[in-house]
C-alpha cells in the first residue's frame, strides 16, 4: 500500500512536471516555427530585444502570482504603473540631478503605498478583491491625470541618467532583464523557503484552516497586495524610463497581459497553486508571441486572434490536467 502511494505520488508529480514540460515543448516548437519563417528570430539582438521588452511583464507576473495564489486578483496594476511612472517622471524633470536609484526607490514607494491601500481594504474591510482593485484602478488612473494635468512628460524633459536606467547594462545584460532575474530569485526564496512565503499558499488553498492553524490571514492578504503594488511601482519607473515618455493612459489594459502570463504559467485562478518556474515560462511565451507575431509577418488582423487562441489552449490544458489530478486524489481516498 505504501508502495502504491509512492507510485501515485510520483505519477502526480510527473503530471505536474509534464505540465511545465508541455509548456517548454510548446515554446520550443513555436520558436522553431518562427525561426523557419524568419531566420532573424533567434539572433542575439532579437532575443535581447524580446527579453528586454518582456522584463517588465515578468516582474509584474511575480506579484500577480502571489495575489492569485491567495484567491485574489489585482486589476489596479496598470493604473499604479501609470501613477508611479508619472510622479517619478515629474520629479526627475523638476530635479534633473536626482540619482536614478533614488527615482527607482521613489516609484517603488509610491507603488507600495498604492498597493497597501488596496490590500488594507481587501484584508481588513473584506471587500472583494475584484471590486476593490477595480475601484482603485479608476482612482489611481484619475490621480495620474490630476498630477500631470493631462499633460505628457516627454523624452526631452527627462534627464539622461533617468533614461539610462532602461538602456544601461550590468555584466553585459540589460538592466531590465537583470532586475527581473533578481526579482525571480528573491521571490523564489521567499515563497519556498520562508515561513511567511509558505503561509501565502496555506491561505490560498484553504483560508479557514489557515486561520484555525494560527496564520494571520489578514496580514498575509494585506502583504501580497502591498508587494504587488511595490512591484507595479517599480515597473512604472522602468516603463517610463524604457519608453522615455509618461502619459496619463500608460499601461492601460496591461493588467490583462499580467494575468495571462500567470494563467499560462499554471497559476490557478482558484488559488493555492503557482510556481515561479511556471510564470517564467508563461511570461516567456507571451513575450515570444509579442515579438514573433510581427516577425512572422502575420496579418495584423490575425495577431490578436492567434494570441487569444494560444492563451485558450493553455487554459484548456490547465483544466484537463487539474481534472486528472483531482480524479487521482479521489481514487487514492478510496484505497
Amino acid at each position: 500500500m505504501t508502495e502504491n502511494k509512492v507510485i501515485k505520488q510520483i505519477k502526480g508529480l510527473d503530471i505536474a512536471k509534464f505540465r511545465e514540460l508541455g509548456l517548454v515543448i510548446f515554446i520550443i516548437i513555436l520558436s522553431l516555427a518562427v525561426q523557419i519563417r524568419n531566420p532573424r528570430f533567434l539572433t542575439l539582438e532579437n532575443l535581447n530585444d524580446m527579453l528586454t521588452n518582456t522584463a517588465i511583464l515578468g516582474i509584474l507576473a511575480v506579484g500577480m502570482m502571489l495575489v492569485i495564489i491567495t484567491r485574489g486578483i489585482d486589476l489596479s496594476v496598470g493604473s499604479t504603473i501609470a501613477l508611479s511612472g508619472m510622479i517619478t517622471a515629474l520629479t526627475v524633470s523638476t530635479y534633473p540631478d536626482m540619482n536614478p536609484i533614488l527615482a527607482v526607490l521613489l516609484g517603488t514607494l509610491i507603488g507600495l503605498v498604492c498597493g497597501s491601500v488596496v490590500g488594507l481594504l481587501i484584508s481588513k474591510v473584506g471587500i472583494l478583491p475584484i471590486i476593490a482593485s477595480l475601484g482603485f484602478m479608476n482612482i489611481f488612473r484619475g490621480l495620474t491625470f490630476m498630477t500631470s494635468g493631462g499633460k505628457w512628460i516627454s523624452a526631452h524633459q527627462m534627464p539622461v541618467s533617468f533614461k539610462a536606467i532602461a538602456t544601461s547594462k550590468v555584466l553585459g545584460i540589460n538592466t531590465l532583464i537583470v532586475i527581473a532575474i533578481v526579482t525571480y530569485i528573491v521571490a523564489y526564496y521567499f515563497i519556498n523557503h520562508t515561513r511567511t512565503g509558505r503561509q501565502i499558499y496555506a491561505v490560498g488553498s484553504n483560508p479557514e484552516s489557515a486561520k484555525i492553524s494560527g496564520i494571520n490571514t489578514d496580514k498575509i492578504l494585506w502583504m501580497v497586495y502591498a508587494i504587488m503594488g511595490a512591484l507595479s511601482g517599480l515597473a512604472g519607473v522602468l516603463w517610463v524610463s524604457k519608453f522615455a515618455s509618461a502619459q496619463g493612459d500608460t499601461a492601460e489594459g496591461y493588467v490583462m497581459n499580467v494575468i495571462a502570463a500567470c494563467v499560462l504559467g499554471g497559476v490557478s485562478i482558484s488559488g493555492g497553486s503557482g510556481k515561479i518556474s511556471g510564470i517564467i515560462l508563461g511570461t516567456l511565451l507571451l513575450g515570444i508571441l509579442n515579438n514573433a507575431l510581427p516577425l512572422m509577418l502575420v496579418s495584423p488582423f490575425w495577431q490578436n486572434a492567434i494570441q487569444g487562441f494560444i492563451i485558450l489552449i493553455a487554459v484548456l490544458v490547465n483544466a484537463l490536467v487539474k481534472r486528472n489530478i483531482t480524479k487521482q486524489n479521489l481514487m487514492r481516498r478510496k484505497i
Partner: protein
Amino acid sequence: MKKLISLLLSLMLVATLITACGEKKVEEPVTSTEKETKTETETKGEKVKFAIIVKNTGNPYNEKEMEGFVKAIEELGGEVILKAPDQPTAEAQIQMIEELIAQNVAAIAIAANDPDALQPALQKAMDKGIKVLSLDSAVNADSRMVHVNQADPTAIGTSLVAGISEMMGGTGQFAILSATSQATNQNAWIEVMKDDLVNYPDIELVKVAYGDDLRDKSVSETEALLQSYPNLKGIVAPTTVGVAAAGKVLTDKGLKGTVQLTGLGLPSEMAEYIESGVCEWMYLWNPIDVGYLAGYAAAALVDGTITGAEGDKFKAGTLGEKSIITVGDGTEIMLGDPFKFDAGNIGEWKAVY
C-alpha cells in the same frame, strides 16, 4: 405627515429651480478671463467685431490659435474679442456665446469642447445673423456654417511621402508604423501615401505595421520591422505614440542616419529625437495657421464672399486661395500642407504642445 413633508420639500425644490432659472437670465456671471484687443486706433468709430472662443485658458496650443486669429483680423482691420473659459467645458462656452450675442459681434469662431452641446446657443447666434464657424475641434454640421480643418488628408499623405523620399535620397525600402488598423485618420493618410507612391518609382513600401498607439506594441513592431527588413531605409509613423516609439528604438539601437524617420507627432514628444537628428524633421499642423485661416474665413463670411456652401472660394492672406468642400454632413475648409518641425524650430515649439 410624511407625505406632507415630502410635498413641502418638493415644493421648495421646484421653487429653487424656478428662481435659479430666472436669475440666470438676468445676471451674466463673468467667471472667465476675457481679453479685448483693439487692433487699430478708434478713429474710424465702429469696427466689425470678430470673436474667437477656444477650449480653455492656459492651453498653449489654443494660445497659438488665438495668435493666428488676431494676426488675420489685424491684417483685415477688424476688432478681436478673445475668449477662453477657465475650464474646458461646454457650459462655460455656452455662457460665452450668450455674452457675445449680447455684444452683437459679427462672427464667432469656436474650438468646441463638445460637438453637440453648443448647438442651441450657436443656432441662436446664427438666427441673430452672427456668422458661426468652428476650428480645430468641430461642432456638428447644424451648429456652424463652415469648419476649418487642420488635417487635410491629401496634403498630409503627400507631404509624408515627399519627406521620407528626400530623407532616403529617393531610393530604398520604407515601412509605415500606424496606430490601430481601424484608425480612420491614419488609414485615410496611408491610402493617399500609397496612391502618391506612383510618383516615386524607386521607393518601395514594404509593410504597414500597427502599433495600436501603445508604447510597448509600437516598440515591438518597430523592432520587428528592423529585423524583418534588414535593408529598411525609412519609417513613416503618422501617429504621435508611434513616431516617438520608433525614435526611441532607433536611438537605442544607434541607427541614426541608417534608418530615417518622419511622421506626424507632437513637438514636445519628438523634440528629443529631432534635436538628436534621429528624426530630421516631422510634420504636424501649425496652430497659428489654423487660427489665421479661421480669421480670414470669418471675415469672408461676414463680407459675404462665402456663405459656407460647397465650392465657395476666398483669399486667406498669406495662405492663398482656399475653397470650401463637403465632408460628411457639413462643409469644411482645409488648412493645406502640414507644418514642418525641424531642428531649427523645434526648440520653440516643444514648449507649446
